[in-house]
């Protein structure tokens, strides 16, 4: 256990003094879900509070994993990349993480870089669609996060919608898919998306525009084929 004298050594500015108060409050109340990302990061880094890390992880785990999964479309690869991402996050948080920016944007950049590196490497050997789980994959529903109790018909309709959307988004080019997923899961601004993907804001906006146009086209094609089947 680190003494208060030790904490005082690190608390140089107002923000850290604020965090010191948080430190005091964590000793009395173990619930950290009400804390902001910055506060949780501080507690983990400076106070070595494992509960703070778990809270932060649980807050974004699903979104980060979903983003990686939607990019690589393979459970094993997504799990590996997800683990690699957090290994880097833990290592960098210990050493040189700058607490000024948004933590999630920083983590998403690491996740995005890991994913893009993988996709580039994978392209050299096999086409990504051949290694993806695809819509035929039987464990699709098992991986989908549980969204509360619904009756059987509602669950079926919802899963059909999800499956359809998953199929269409999987068809999008990687760079368009990345922008859509970063916006969809993380609700990042286009400035942040542009920084993560290493393009200008206008390019990011343009990619979103093309992604939406393509999705619209896929839905229209699907409707058309359903009509044809019915007739």
């Amino acid at each position, binding site marked *: 256990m*680190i*003494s208060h*004298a*030790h904490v005082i*050594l690190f608390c140089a500015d107002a923000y850290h003094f604020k965090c010191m108060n948080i430190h005091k409050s964590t000793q009395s109340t173990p619930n950290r879900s009400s804390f902001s990302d910055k506060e949780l990061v501080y507690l*983990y880094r400076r106070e*070595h509070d*494992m509960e703070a*890390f*778990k809270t932060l*992880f649980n807050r974004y*785990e*699903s*979104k980060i*994993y*979903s983003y990686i*999964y*939607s990019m690589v479309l393979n*459970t094993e690869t*997504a*799990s590996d990349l*997800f*683990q690699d991402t*957090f*290994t880097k996050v*833990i*290592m960098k948080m*210990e050493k040189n993480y700058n607490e000024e920016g948004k933590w999630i944007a920083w983590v998403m950049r690491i996740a995005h870089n890991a994913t893009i590196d993988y996709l580039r490497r994978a392209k050299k050997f096999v086409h990504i669609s051949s290694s993806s789980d695809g819509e035929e994959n039987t464990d699709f529903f098992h*991986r*989908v*996060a549980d969204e509360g109790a619904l009756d059987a018909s509602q669950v079926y309709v*919802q899963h059909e*919608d*999800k499956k*359809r*959307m*998953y199929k269409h*988004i999987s068809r999008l080019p990687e760079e368009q898919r990345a922008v*859509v997923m970063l*916006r*969809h*899961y993380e609700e990042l*601004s*286009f400035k942040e998306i542009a920084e993560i993907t290493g393009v200008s804001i*206008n390019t990011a*906006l*343009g990619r*979103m*525009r093309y992604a*939406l*146009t393509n*999705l*619209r086209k896929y*839905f229209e094609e699907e409707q058309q084929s359903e009509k044809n089947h019915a007739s």
Partner: protein
Amino acid sequence: MKKNNNQKKTMQVNQTEIIRFLMDEMDPSEKISFEKRIRLNQDLLIEVESLKKTWEKTNAYPSFESPERVKEAIFAKAEASITASSKNWNWIPQHGFKVAASFLVMATAIIAWNTWMPTNQLESTGSLNTPIDGQQSNAPLTTAKDSGIGSDVNETNNEITPWVDHNHIIRFAGTTDFNLSQSPEINSTSHQNSKLRLVNDQTGYTGQSRKILLTGNTP
């Protein structure tokens, strides 16, 4: 051709603007002006509505959960990282006070050294000047151009030490209660150069050691 390019450019701007509008990335004034444009342009309205519906459909896109074993592995890594960094910093609470105390002693020593140094330096400077003063006080008074810079420190000496300033005034230090008639130095100097005479008015010089002035200038 040029017209086509302009149309393309306008369309491109619109496309980016549509996304900014849909994603709520416009500032309020831009939003109001874009809404006006939508009301005036039916095609733009259709395009915006269509893309809005497509974007809303993406809400159905599922979230996925990472496998439990991956979560556990990540938590284990985080714990291991904490343990490793705690080991690195464990010496602080144990030896922290010793380190702090040694820093304090060092800082005190540095401050003491800095405060002691100037006086020490002054003393050493003074000791260097003493022999020079001694030499000058023993030296005979020759010309009016000679200057004795260190002579004014001779207040402690009982001997009379003359020196000449830039106004050609010969000054004698340590002569607070001086009897002119009894001073052989002044008398001899006055005889050697008849132009020299005693000045009682010490213009600009009121130092305690500068009581008697002889000058070659006529008032």
